[in-house]
């Protein structure tokens, strides 16, 4: 047996420019980031202080969606694209709490994220987790790799949580590429499969301003989209109630304090392929 050592040029950890997964880890109160990431995260927060609450709100949304999919919708296979660094309530933990036999395949292209995922995002005995080193900008290759790990003849849920913003050019109002990528993924879904997405809308000038500075920091650019563009990801699918909404309003957990106020500009939803 031959063991290929992975240190390809892409396997280098870049500590000189901020990296989205590490900045998110900082915003979420984690311990896995470099000084350059904290700097970028703080700079962002100076313009848009809501980001800390917003980051948490997006994690809660993911947890509610995965709980719904593994529970009510009966999904046992998940393709989580844009894994991020391990945090509380990672996708497989939420899914396997509801359905111990759920299988989660994580996809990322950041070497640090992949190393952490392989070592720490490991499932229980009944279910399992797996990992794919792939880039969302090449969905065909991503799906080829996923097809070796998941059975696409049975229902699969594809998660695109906060990753679509890395697609496309932030200077252009053109989401043709983004819609085409989502289209390719939707086409791969079998009947009864699900697509779950949240993405950032351009509705808040403060967020847009914070992103302008962020995109100059050397980090991979992050772009916001119009609400109608986000809604179009679900074209051709049956939207699960309540549709594409601010993520805090998507099936919120019961709270004695009433419905949560809007903490972020993220819009999200879940669609089912008929």
């Amino acid at each position, binding site marked *: *047996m031959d*063991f290929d*050592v*992975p*240190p390809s040029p892409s*396997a*280098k*950890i870049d*500590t000189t420019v901020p990296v989205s997964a590490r900045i998110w880890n900082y915003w979420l*109160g984690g*311990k*896995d980031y*470099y*000084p350059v990431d904290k700097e970028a995260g703080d700079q962002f927060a100076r313009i848009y202080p809501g980001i800390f609450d917003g980051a948490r709100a997006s994690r809660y949304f993911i947890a509610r969606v995965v709980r719904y999919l593994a529970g009510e919708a009966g999904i046992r296979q998940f393709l989580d694209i844009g894994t991020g660094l391990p945090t509380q309530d990672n996708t497989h933990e939420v899914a396997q709490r509801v359905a111990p036999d759920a299988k989660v395949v994580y996809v990322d292209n950041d*070497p*640090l994220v*992949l*190393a*952490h995922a*392989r*070592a*720490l995002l*490991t*499932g*229980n*005995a009944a279910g399992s987790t797996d990992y794919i080193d792939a880039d969302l900008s090449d969905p065909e290759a991503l799906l080829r790799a996923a097809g070796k790990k998941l059975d696409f003849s049975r229902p699969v849920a594809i998660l695109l949580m906060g990753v679509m913003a890395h697609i496309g050019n932030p200077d252009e109002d053109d989401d043709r590429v983004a819609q085409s990528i989502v289209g390719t993924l939707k086409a791969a879904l079998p009947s009864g499969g699900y697509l779950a997405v949240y993405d950032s809308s351009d509705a808040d000038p403060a967020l847009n301003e914070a992103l302008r500075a962020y995109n100059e920091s050397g980090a991979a650019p992050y772009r916001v989209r119009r609400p109608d563009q986000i809604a179009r990801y679900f074209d051709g699918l049956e939207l699960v109630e309540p549709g594409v909404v601010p993520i805090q309003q998507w099936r919120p957990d019961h709270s004695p304090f009433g419905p949560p106020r809007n903490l972020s500009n993220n819009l999200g939803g879940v669609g089912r392929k008929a």
Partner: protein
Amino acid sequence: MPPQGCRHGAGDIAGPPDTGDGRAEPAAGYEAGPTAMRMLLGARLRKLREAAGVSREDAARAIRGSESKMSRLELGRISFKLRDVSDLLGLYRAGEDERGTLLTMAREANAPGWWQAYGDAVPAWFAPYLGLEQAAEIIRSYEVQFVPGLLQTPGYARAVLEIGAGDNPALDVAQQVSVRIRRQRVLHRPNPLRLWAVIDEAALRRPIGGAAVARAQLEHLIEMTRLSHVNVQIAPLRAGSRAVADGPVTMLRFPAAELPDMVYLEQHTTAAYLSKPAERLYYWNVMNRLATEALPPADTEAMLRQILREL
């Protein structure tokens, strides 16, 4: 362990002098029990002090101690006297609930650790590691010479510890083996420790204790890596990984958000406990480089089987 360590117990077991910067502690302070509780209590006290706008110097005066003692208390490095905690809570004008909680924590923090029953088999500079290991949620380690202590068989551990004992007849190797095996309970408790180890291929090819012992050890390693909370990556001989670390490194992560990671570096007769931000960052980066350059965990079993065949 040094976790692997052949080293602990190799010679003089006196603790290093306290430099006051967290690199080393007086042995006496480490006799206190559950380390995590102490660290949490220290962190809570520091937050309360800062919120109350009290300087470390003034706080130290209130408990008749030095600023350095105060600093070590807040890092959870030395044991708490209930009277000191009570005086500090008064100074910080802590509420009744807070006072009750923190005094309970202080009592629990003073409970003896399991290792105290093992006497000299646990040198003073190593005892704190045992408390930290028990408190940790994730341990990342890099091993150059040996299989990590938490994954050793009794036979392999004995061979390793005999190397470490050298000519010192005073050392009770059997007792040290018992300590090492007792430590491994952290991997079998209900909410087990997550171990993420990078082991140099050379360490796995060295027939410590002879072929039979080494073989049994490799087979045990294969068994252990089947646990979802044990992840081993092998740094192949031809990878350049070793350039980034010239010796074993252990990095501990604790469940509480306010507790920073701790780096543990073992030497022959002492150990360093590093927790300053720059030190943590340096070693975190080292561990990240090692993990990204080593074989992925999915290749570990096949590689171990190959080494077994070639042993």
